[in-house]
């Protein structure tokens, strides 16, 4: 239902954007007749409502149409090609974020108000406060242009080897994951602090369990519950970041497809891409809800 409203909204909202893709495409050719021919061929000359009905009909058959530009690649192909790039980037960024955030959050919580706590807090805020494209360019200048350690651009599918895939994603993932790791570290710290205060941890402590056992076996899983809630929102944040990061590193992921589509007024592409992004959003949140009940049996769906 929401998906359908989104689809409809996107369709009509896009046509409200000024700018004609065909005129732009044929500017150099300078042939208004050619633009009209193409408009007819692509069915863009028909009334908006008819176009909409036709689009919906095709959509139900799983056909999202074709890009207006160049070779008129089917939108589904563009999205299927772009998805693994964005997902790889998002997953790796997420992994890096979690990898940094969990230990940092735990240490900060266990050593509350120590130097380590303040240092991680400061670092976390620094990570939060850097514009992502700026961090990305800095990483490129240091690790690609000067040290020549990692490539500055591009994406290699994992089918061509794990290392080439990883090598191309390290810099973008760091750039996209930094701000996110800061947020999660802060969250883990505060939820750890709360969990430690709770009765059962005090009981565990009274029973003389080792501190590490308490932290890892008892406190951490409970502290992670609120973190999981945020994962849905995490995707939203990552999406915004990947739009920019994909542009810096020339990775044609979903974000890049969307931005390019909006700027070029490539209607079918934007419609398809937004639809897919919204569906992923809704799916992830469903997943988070389910995960939540699994981890914390006290929560039940109404």
């Amino acid at each position, binding site marked *: 239902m929401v998906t359908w409203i989104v689809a409809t909204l996107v369709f009509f909202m896009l046509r409200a954007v000024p700018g004609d893709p065909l005129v732009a495409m044929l500017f150099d050719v300078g042939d208004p007749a050619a633009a009209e021919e193409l408009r007819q061929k692509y069915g863009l000359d028909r009334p908006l409502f008819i176009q909409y009905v036709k689009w919906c009909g095709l959509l139900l058959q799983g056909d999202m149409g074709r890009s207006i530009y160049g070779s008129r690649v089917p939108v589904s192909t563009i999205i299927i090609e772009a998805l693994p790039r964005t997902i790889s980037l998002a997953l790796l960024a997420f992994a890096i974020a979690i990898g940094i955030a969990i230990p940092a959050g735990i240490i900060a919580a266990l050593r509350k108000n120590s130097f380590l706590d303040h240092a991680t807090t400061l670092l976390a805020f620094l990570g939060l406060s850097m514009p992502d494209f700026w961090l990305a360019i800095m990483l490129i200048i240091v690790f690609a242009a000067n040290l020549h350690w990692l490539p500055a651009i591009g994406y290699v599918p994992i089918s061509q080897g794990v290392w080439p895939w990883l090598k191309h994603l390290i810099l973008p993932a760091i750039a996209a994951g930094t701000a996110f790791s800061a947020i999660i570290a802060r969250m883990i710290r505060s939820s750890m602090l709360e969990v430690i205060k709770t009765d059962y941890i005090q009981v565990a402590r009274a029973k003389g369990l080792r501190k590490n056992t308490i932290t890892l076996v008892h406190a951490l899983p409970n502290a992670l519950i609120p973190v999981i809630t945020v994962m849905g929102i995490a995707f939203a944040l990552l999406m915004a970041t990947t*739009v920019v990061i994909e542009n810096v590193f020339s990775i044609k992921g979903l974000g890049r497809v969307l931005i390019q589509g909006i700027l070029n007024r490539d209607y079918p592409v934007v419609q398809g891409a937004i639809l897919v992004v919204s569906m992923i959003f809704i799916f992830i949140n469903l997943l988070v809800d389910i995960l939540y009940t699994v981890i914390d049996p006290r929560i039940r769906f109404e």
Partner: protein
Amino acid sequence: MQLATDDASRVDSPEDVSLLRRSRWTDWWLTVMHDKKALAGLVILAVFVFMGLFAPLIAPYDPNDMEYEMLAPPSRSHLLGTDDLGRDLLSRIIHGTRISFFIGFTTVALALVSGVFLGLTAGYYGGWRDHLIMRYIDLQWAFPNFIIAVYMVAVFGTGIFNLTIAISLAYVDDFARLARGMVLTIKQEPYVMAARAMGASNTRIMGTYVLPNATAPLIVQATVSVSYAILAEAALSFLGLGVESTTPTWGLILAEGRSFISRAWWVGVFPGLAIMLTVLSINFLGDALRDFMDVRETQDLM
């Protein structure tokens, strides 16, 4: 959701509420004075606000004057060097404070007001209003915020005004969701029930009981949003959708200088530093606010 409503629940007249609020602000002030990070944040922000207010008096040069040597390193005549068009970087950053702060605070104020209005209406009245508003919020939530901003700029064009609207629109749902959640909780509090039973009008109940008690988490959310808005503006500038160069923002200065960073570090470092300091300060303040109001960390992301 656990809220700091213990104090308020004992209050039964509006006069007392405002008194209480005043004293809470004083408490907060005292907390800030004792929290070194928050104090530092406050001082830095104050300096920036001062800089912004008196920019024309403080800035050593006209920020749009291209009369100086291009990409000159920091020197006595140009403390922070010049940019790629021969403009004084310090003057541009000082003037940039105005627009960056304006965009940061105005967007959040707009989003806050409209979001709270929607959230209160939905949460307080329930019924069809709630249904309608929640559908809208769900819908907006299914679009990544950043994409909404890009779309808005594509429709209305660039410029400070359009940019402010675009970014604020993207944050409306965050505030609406939060406000609604708060109202639903507060509505069940005995003192609200009592007021209603005593025949207080809806507007009166909302204004005197509900809203003041919902402020704490909203303020926390707002502070964090200001920093996101400043970063979002930078990201839009990076995509070429930012403000015009004659009214620079820090994000724009950074985005314009990005291809010169490896050749002239100052164009990348100083505006980046300004953004980082501001975001850092806002977060420190927000942190102190959160600690003081005892708002759980999760809420800034909900």
